[in-house]
């Protein structure tokens, strides 16, 4: 009797274990996923960061400029680099408006018969710069530097500088097909922040807010 009882007990234990086998399997598989998951995440984040250009669009009003400056003629037709005129972009906070002398460097001889160039020459002779209006203006409480963005997206990436207009287009839109530039990206905080998340920019409030 005693032996029988023992047998009965052990067989029921085995049965219980067998019944629980699916639980073991589930636990093992969860453990396996847990063990592998960090490697998957790490390997995906350690690969070379891909640049995700900011999306979004904005229908900015056309800004009336003193001279209707044709960006398309300069950039698209004549292939002038953005940073030939906006020189300070790579070394300061602001991209800069070129001095009138830079315009006159070419336009003393080129297209002098056009009315826009004649207007420019008038400004040049009066020794007063054309009162250009700012198109891409962020609020005064925002700290934005062109140089760091160019470093991140152009110089650190070994991006060919002659194609820099593609990087400028992230925030300024397709300027090579515009005459007078107008705002085509929202330039608001959510838009900046999305790009900072996608491309590893700082997330600290005081990195941009001042």
């Amino acid at each position, binding site marked *: 009797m005693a032996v029988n009882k023992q047998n009965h007990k052990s067989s029921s234990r085995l049965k219980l274990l067998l019944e629980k086998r699916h639980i073991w399997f589930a636990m093992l598989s969860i453990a396996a996923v847990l063990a592998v998951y960090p490697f998957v995440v790490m390997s995906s984040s350690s690969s070379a960061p891909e640049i995700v250009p900011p999306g979004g669009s904005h229908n900015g009003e056309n800004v009336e400029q003193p001279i209707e400056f044709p960006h398309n003629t300069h950039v698209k037709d004549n292939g002038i680099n953005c940073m030939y005129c906006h020189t300070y972009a790579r070394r300061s906070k602001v991209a800069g408006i070129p001095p009138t002398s830079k315009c006159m460097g070419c336009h003393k001889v080129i297209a002098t018969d056009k009315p826009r160039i004649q207007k420019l020459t008038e400004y040049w002779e009066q020794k007063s710069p054309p009162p250009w209006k700012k198109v891409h203006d962020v609020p005064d409480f925002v*700290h934005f530097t062109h140089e*760091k963005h160019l470093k991140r997206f152009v110089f650190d990436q070994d991006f060919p500088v002659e194609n820099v207009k593609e990087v400028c287009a992230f925030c300024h839109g397709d300027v090579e097909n515009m005459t007078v530039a107008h705002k085509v990206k929202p330039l608001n905080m959510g838009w900046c922040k999305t790009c900072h998340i996608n491309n590893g920019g700082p997330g600290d409030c*005081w990195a941009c*807010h*001042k």
Partner: protein
Amino acid sequence: MSLENLLGNWSQYRKGHEEGGFHDYKHLWGMAIDLDICIGCNACATACYAENNLAVVGKERFEKGQAMHWLRLERYWDQNELDHPAQGASFLPMMCQQCDAATCEPVCPVAATYHTPDGLNAQVYNRCIGSRYCSNNCPYRNRYFNFYSYYEDSWPEPLNMQLNPDLTVRDKGVMEKCTFCVQRIRVAKDNAKMENRPVADGEAMTACAQACPTNAIVFGDYMDKDSQVAKLWKKHQVKLRLTKQNKENPELRGYRIFEELNVDPSVMYLERVREEV
């Protein structure tokens, strides 16, 4: 990503405050102020007014306690029983102590004040709704509220041309405080990053430290062990993240104000030495 958080090293958050807490700073801006060489000239306060667009509120409002001085010079009398010249005036420049466990931060209902990765107590003016909880919770009384719009009174034309463009001019209903001249820190960090190098000691300098004629105020990065600040803290055996300093040599002058409150200030003061007559 939540699973990643779950698998992260949680033991770092279980460290007590005295073991360093959970902060993982790249920079930790700190200060050392030697009260023995401070002559109480107020140059630091003046420099702060000029640098940080601080409003001049006028005598009446000053008396009501509405002054906007981010850095004030506190005056104490060491020998009060004596008459004026011999009274023994001593001075203490008091600015935001940029506490590591700041009491102002957790009480903000809109998270306008928060801790930056540099160990600063930041104030985001755009987010501030002016509840003034932070000011009430600051043991040092170093937060200042804009009860009025001071722009036109304080900088009538053409004085508005003297405003610092690196800083917002705060308007009515916003709390403000010493930022350790974050605009200068930002420039130093930007320059260092453009040249792919770490920020050098002395590159980021607050206006008060720059203006001090006796170099009583020393500002720098506490994490940089070769910086002047870190050396001074070490020399005077003052450590961060302690509520009571255990100095081997109790004669050393370094101390932190209100550290017993467990707020962990980033400013160390060096006691004034007086010769007994």
